[in-house]
């Protein structure tokens, strides 16, 4: 007896067909009548969240800018011995007012100059005084400035005018302003320029940024993965075709196809014999049935090998298009590092940990390469331990014009507020002042960043993948805080509004469900210009964890 393999025995099942129960059509009809399910709810929510974020942040920043502009911008009076450093932002419009203010401030200056102890200290010691002017950001304070009818109140039409209120002593007591070179202050204060350097912490600004929404694509994985198979199915030979089998017989199973008829079917032969076993339902007329049967044959035999090739190419392209977009949300920890042994006030900058979070999108160009962008909230920071400072508020020595405190236009309405003079180690030794205290100075610069990254897939198997990413980013300063021993004392005036940098990261991703992946992403970022002149931690290590949906 003739022998055959299992596949040959079952080859008759290849074109097996069976007429479905009639009730199935009515059930399908019912389902077709229902509105389409919202399959992409997650994607739409992601898009909506990005859009909302994109709209909200600029609005918030815009209004913050407005309110900030109506208030007094903090400036500084820098004390290099007895000289006053004139602010570059001084403009002609403000000169008259400044002069007026100066006249009234003469008393303050006089008292400042008349403070022999102060002058002698500076003249005789000849040491470098590193001073950090700490500016008040309290809105109440700003409004008090605004409301004040004092000479140092900034006019509304000069929003950018900075008013210094912090000096070698109390800012309230010695609120001196920026002035032109012709300032009358020159008459009272003479500069001796004995190598006194200063280091300031300055105010930052906030403004808007833009975000973009991403279009979405979707493709069925399975559809595309099956394409090679279907290419095979469309080669054709009607060898086994039998009109007796193709129609007129509506039995559920067609047993006329004998097993032995298919003995010669070979797997290696891509031109698979496809027989037409289609059963036409009784609802069709005989003529219709014949036509439909022919139609099916036509469908099956219509493709030439060339067309097959074309189809394959198209399907290959489709494979490349699958899951091209990905949206990810992530959060993680970051640590700003001091890699150059930079110092502030004579003390080494320590690393500082912070959090980061954001959303990002990625577009796959091909199997290996992808580009990505997004929005990320990140914080760069540094800690400086053992910073010497003098609390000015309670120190008569550094508050020679204390009598003016009450009338000071920039006096804080916040009773808890203190003013501090930060001094370098060398100054501290020279001063030998009992009032000098030490504390920990924390500085944080928070940015909203928009990276642009190129990603390369180094490993992709089954559910796991590893990508290497590199690129650059631009960040907008959204928060600027300086804290002494945990208490916020103002902002860093040297902070740049915009920061640029480069990033290098690696994404280790694992597919947990359908198109949803979890990933962990160690990264290193380098910030080119966080501050204008001061040293600041520029390297940042980060470890992000996130969820990624591809479509």
């Amino acid at each position, binding site marked *: 007896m*003739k022998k055959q393999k299992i596949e040959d*025995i*079952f080859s008759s099942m290849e074109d*097996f067909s069976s007429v479905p129960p009639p009730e*199935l059509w009515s059930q399908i009809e019912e389902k077709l009548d229902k509105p389409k399910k919202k399959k992409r709810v997650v994607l739409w929510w992601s898009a909506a969240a990005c859009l909302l974020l994109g709209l909200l942040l600029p609005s918030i920043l815009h209004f913050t800018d407005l309110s900030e502009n109506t208030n007094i911008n903090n400036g500084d009076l820098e004390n290099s011995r007895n000289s006053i450093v004139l602010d570059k932002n001084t403009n002609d419009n403000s000169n008259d007012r400044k002069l007026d203010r100066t006249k009234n401030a003469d008393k303050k200056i006089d008292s400042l100059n008349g403070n022999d102890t102060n002058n002698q200290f500076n003249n005789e010691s000849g040491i470098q005084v590193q001073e950090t002017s700490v500016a008040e950001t309290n809105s109440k304070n700003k409004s008090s400035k605004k409301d004040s009818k004092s000479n140092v109140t900034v006019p509304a039409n000069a929003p950018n005018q900075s008013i210094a209120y912090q000096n070698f002593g109390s800012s309230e007591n010695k609120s001196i302003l920026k002035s032109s070179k012709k300032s009358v202050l020159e008459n009272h204060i003479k500069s001796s320029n004995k190598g006194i350097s200063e280091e300031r912490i300055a105010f930052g600004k906030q403004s808007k940024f833009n975000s973009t929404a991403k279009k979405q694509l979707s493709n069925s994985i399975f559809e595309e993965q099956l394409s090679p*198979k279907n290419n095979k*199915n*469309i080669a054709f030979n009607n060898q086994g075709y039998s009109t007796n089998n193709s129609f007129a017989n509506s039995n559920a199973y067609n047993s006329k196809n004998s097993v032995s008829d298919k003995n010669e079917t070979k797997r290696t032969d891509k031109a698979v014999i496809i027989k037409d076993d289609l*059963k036409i339902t009784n609802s069709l007329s005989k003529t219709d049935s014949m036509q439909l049967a022919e139609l099916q044959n036509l469908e099956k035999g219509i493709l030439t090998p060339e067309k097959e090739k074309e189809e394959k190419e198209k399907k290959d392209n489709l494979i490349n298009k699958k899951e091209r977009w990905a949206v990810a949300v992530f959060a993680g920890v970051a640590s700003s590092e001091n890699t150059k042994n930079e110092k502030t006030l004579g003390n080494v900058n320590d690393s500082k940990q912070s959090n980061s979070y954001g959303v990002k999108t990625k577009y796959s160009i091909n199997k290996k390469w992808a580009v990505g962008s997004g929005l990320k909230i990140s914080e760069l920071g540094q800690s400086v331990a053992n910073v010497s400072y003098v609390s000015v508020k309670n120190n008569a020595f550094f508050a020679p014009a204390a009598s003016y405190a009450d009338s000071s236009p920039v006096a804080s309405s916040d009773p808890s507020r203190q003013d501090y003079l930060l001094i370098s180690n060398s100054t501290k030794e020279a001063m030998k002042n009992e009032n000098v205290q030490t504390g920990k100075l924390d500085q944080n610069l928070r940015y909203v960043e928009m990276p642009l990254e190129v990603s390369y897939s180094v490993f992709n198997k089954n559910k796991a993948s590893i990508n290497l990413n590199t690129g650059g980013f631009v960040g907008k300063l959204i928060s600027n805080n300086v804290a002494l021993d945990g208490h916020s004392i103002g902002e860093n005036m040297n902070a740049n509004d915009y920061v640029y940098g480069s990033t290098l990261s690696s994404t280790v991703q694992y597919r947990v469900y359908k198109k949803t992946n979890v990933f962990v992403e160690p990264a290193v970022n380098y910030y080119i210009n966080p501050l204008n002149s001061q040293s600041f931690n520029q390297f940042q290590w980060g470890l992000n964890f996130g969820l990624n949906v591809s479509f």
Partner: protein
Amino acid sequence: MNHFLKDELEKYIKLCIKNDREGQLKIYQLFSPVLYGICLKYMKNEDDAKDVFQEAFVIAFQKISQYKFEGSFEGWLKRIFINKLIETLNKKKKESFFLDVFDPDTDFIEEEELEAIPIEQEKLLEYIRDLPDQYRTVFNLYVFEKMKHKEIAELLKISEGTSKSNLNRAKHILQKRILSIKNFKIA
């Protein structure tokens, strides 16, 4: 005539794109036997096959506008159905679905050639459906859809080795069943 039939089919597809019920019924009548047959081969019981058949047809009608009138429409429909079948089987078994490891006891058994005797399609279908889900799926894809192990592995997110192993085990089980029938007949 052929052109006429091709035009007819295109007409029905275009009607389906417009969500026309008459066109959908024509397409259903034309292709439902083959597609229902596929569902019966992949699913263990008929109720499951009916469920998948309905859902896949609904998906096909919803996505019919994506058909570009290039290539076989039946092939396009089959892809949708097989995708849906595999998705359903994966849901049923989740992680445990294709976690088979190599088993030398069964995987090294050489395929035996059997004496050719006619077996009814109903019986063959029964044997196929009695196979465990993972073996049945790989067997269907390999034997009926003519897919290679690499393609099956990609589709099912399993290794090629697992695909081969599942196929061997499926064949082994089917071989036993057929032999038992023959022995029964001889006896």
